[in-house]
């Protein structure tokens, strides 16, 4: 896999398009989403029924609710998906194919919501806020993944870093009654798991995917072990931390809709925003970022100009662990305030999918995390509506969306060239 999207010129001057097949696949995926929207949702809604999107929740300025004719809206969404599919097929110079697919999935989810809420009101602000909260660990996990993978080390241990960090953050925050100690403990625990991954994968060149999966099993076993022995008998002292409360950013939190949705959140949301800016600038506009990418793309060349490849990678794997550790802490001291066995439920792997879907870029990772967070939040919004879908199927939504996203595009995104390959000097 190499080269960017779009046609390239061969030596003889002919223009060939190496991505024709994959563009066709994504176009088909978008087409299927469009047709499904029209057949499943638009046809099932009687005309004249409205879906009301509540927009004013929590904001100081009153925003009127919007009532859309449900049938027409879903029909329009279906048609937009079809148009996107055609555009995807014809637009050969498209540099951001995932964006189109992401928009397609989000539109499909919106159509689903419109159908589910026909004749009822939907708490749009609540949905956005929940999406954001669900997206936080995903974004941090995806950051962790890309910090590691940009330097050439695959990090499948994100799930394990989440779990151990969530556990220790809850335990130390309840023991010391200081949230920041919990946060630090989570970050440090993630860093330690990252260090173990680094030692095994970089120094001893073990298979990175195997080490990652085994570390996940290790973390799951260890945290479940202590949750059922230590925490169970000492719930009050060891497993009842307080949680970070939301605080508003002055002025910004007064903006309608997005104000209460984005700028009245707890510290983890702001950490994501700060890290997004820091990573986007750091990776692409600083010497540090250039070195990281050099080590991940062409370690031998990097070594030749004097960059210490394996130390650079080790530092990044530990840093990635710290970031994932913060994400892990958000599970306990950022939301429910209690550790439960296997509470991450595979979100570490979805975070990895968000990183891939986001094309190994911080901004892409956040957008992908928001998309998956939105799909996750849908189940809570939809479950209070009167919908003939069993809850088990609603819970499947984020997992299915992940599969669609990863299957719809891979091959169009390019991992760092040396991703997963240990480096040794000749």
């Amino acid at each position, binding site marked *: 896999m190499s080269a960017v999207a779009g046609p390239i010129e061969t030596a003889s001057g002919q223009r060939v398009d190496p991505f024709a097949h*994959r563009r066709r*696949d994504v176009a088909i995926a978008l087409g299927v989403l469009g047709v499904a929207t029209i057949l499943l949702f638009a046809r099932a809604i009687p005309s004249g029924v409205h879906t009301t999107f509540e927009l004013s929740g929590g904001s100081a300025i009153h925003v009127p609710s919007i009532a859309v004719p449900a049938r027409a809206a879903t029909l329009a969404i279906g048609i937009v998906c079809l148009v996107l599919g055609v555009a995807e097929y014809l637009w050969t110079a498209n540099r951001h194919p995932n964006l189109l697919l992401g928009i397609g999935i989000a539109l499909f989810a919106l159509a689903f919501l419109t159908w589910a809420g026909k004749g009822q009101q939907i708490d749009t602000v609540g949905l956005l806020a929940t999406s954001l909260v669900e997206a936080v660990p995903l974004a941090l996990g995806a950051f962790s993944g890309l910090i590691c993978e940009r330097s050439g080390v*695959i990090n*499948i241990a994100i799930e394990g870093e989440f779990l151990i960090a969530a556990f220790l953050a809850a335990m130390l925050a309840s023991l010391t009654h200081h949230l920041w100690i919990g946060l630090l403990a989570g970050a440090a625990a993630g860093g330690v798991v990252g260090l173990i991954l680094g*030692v*095994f994968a970089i*120094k*001893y*060149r*073990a*298979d*990175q*995917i*195997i*080490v990652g*999966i*085994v*570390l996940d*099993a*290790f973390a*799951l*076993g*260890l945290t*479940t*072990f*202590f949750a*059922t*022995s*230590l925490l169970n008998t000492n719930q009050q002292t060891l497993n009842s931390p307080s949680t970070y409360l939301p605080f508003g950013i002055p002025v910004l939190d007064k903006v309608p809709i997005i104000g209460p949705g984005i700028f009245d959140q707890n510290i983890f949301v702001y950490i994501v925003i700060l890290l997004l800016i820091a990573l986007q600038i750091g990776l692409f506009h600083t010497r540090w970022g250039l070195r990281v990418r050099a080590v991940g793309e062409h370690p031998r060349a990097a070594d030749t100009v004097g960059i210490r490849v394996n130390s650079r990678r080790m530092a990044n794997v530990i840093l990635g662990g710290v970031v994932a550790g913060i994400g892990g802490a958000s599970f306990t001291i950022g939301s429910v305030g209690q550790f439960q066995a296997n509470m991450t*439920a*595979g979100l570490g*792997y*979805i975070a*990895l*999918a968000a990183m*891939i879907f986001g094309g190994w870029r911080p901004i892409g990772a956040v957008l992908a995390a928001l998309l998956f967070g939105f799909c996750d939040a849908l189940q809570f919004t939809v479950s209070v509506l009167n919908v003939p879908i*069993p809850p*088990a*199927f609603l*819970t*499947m939504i984020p*997992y*299915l969306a*992940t*599969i669609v996203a*990863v*299957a*719809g*595009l*891979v*091959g169009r995104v390019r*991992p760092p060239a*040396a*991703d*997963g*390959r*240990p480096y040794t000097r000749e």
Partner: protein
Amino acid sequence: MSTQVTAPPEDGAKPRPSAPRRLFSWMISGNTFTVTVLAFFSALVVGAVIIVLATPSAMTAWHYALVSPGTALSESWDAITSAYGALLSGALGSRQAISETLVSTTPLLMAGLGVALAFRAGLFNIGGEGQLILGAMGATWAGFSFRGLPILVHLPLALLAGAVAGGAWAFIPGILKARTGAHEVITSMMLNYVALNLLGWVLIQKEFCATNPCTDAISKVVAQGSRLPHIAGSNLRVNLGIVLAVLFAIGVAWLLQRSTLGFEFRMIGLNADAAGVAGVSTKRLYVVVMTMSGMLVGLAGAFSVLGVDYQLSPAYGGTTGFDAITVAILGHGSPLGVALASLLFGAFISGGRAMQVSTGIPLQLVVVIQAVLVLFVAAPGVIRTIYRIKVRRGAERVFGGWG
């Protein structure tokens, strides 16, 4: 060389060392066997530390370790020996214990074979949990849907249903990998959670649920004719499943070593690009190997339902899906290795249950020990460094990336 008294040594003039000496030098040479044994020992040490951490009396003694270090050590030693003693006697201490060990080994062996098969073709099937659930679901459905069939018809039918359901579930990541390049680690992992939710839903449908109207999420009981017969008397749970699993291990060994298909699997596992250049259709093989892998894992689920539980509950599967991965890694992807590894882990699980009952130390300790063991086995260099074993050159494999 004028005289020929004995056969000349082939290279060099050194006489062959004596057998015990050769055995000794083989044992310390850092080969797979030595590394595995030392990794096993190291994992037990890590487990011992965790046992002490989870034993309140031992931890209290450590608070006064400066005053009376002897008490702390002896309390810890007592905790460790009683836990590991309970584990050992629960795994091998009686006929019942051995029966339970074999019962735990059966699904691990089948699922481990499935994961190992994919592994040899370079694919990570971490969707074992989902395929187990689907396999168990298929076998259960076939088991209770037909009544009065002879066992020679009903049992194979139920096993087939399990294999087909597990294979179909694994076909999805296979076809996605072949068609779109989606990485099987992510897709098969996601399907685990989908399967788990599907199981919860299926069990409360009136076609599956034991009672009507459905009060508990538990399935109907499978018919007598579809159950795997006991092989050591009716009061021991060990059943025909372990025999079939061993036969399947031999079958997979034959497939990998003696058949064209197995040769192609190993080719794409070693170097997919080279295999493609040599004219092997890698995409078709990805689908085939994932489906076969899923069928084996699905059979593991079928064996549990038809041999032990006879009905399906929401907690089905547990950590077997993950254990299958560690079994496959520990067994280095070879059927014989998988068989030995699953026997070891089967002993761990049945022993761990006995330990949980008698000492109150949670079963998850076993998962931790397994993970540490496999971690060390996956990185033999770590073990060689800890125990200062000399390194043999050229034995290291270098692994690829997302592929």
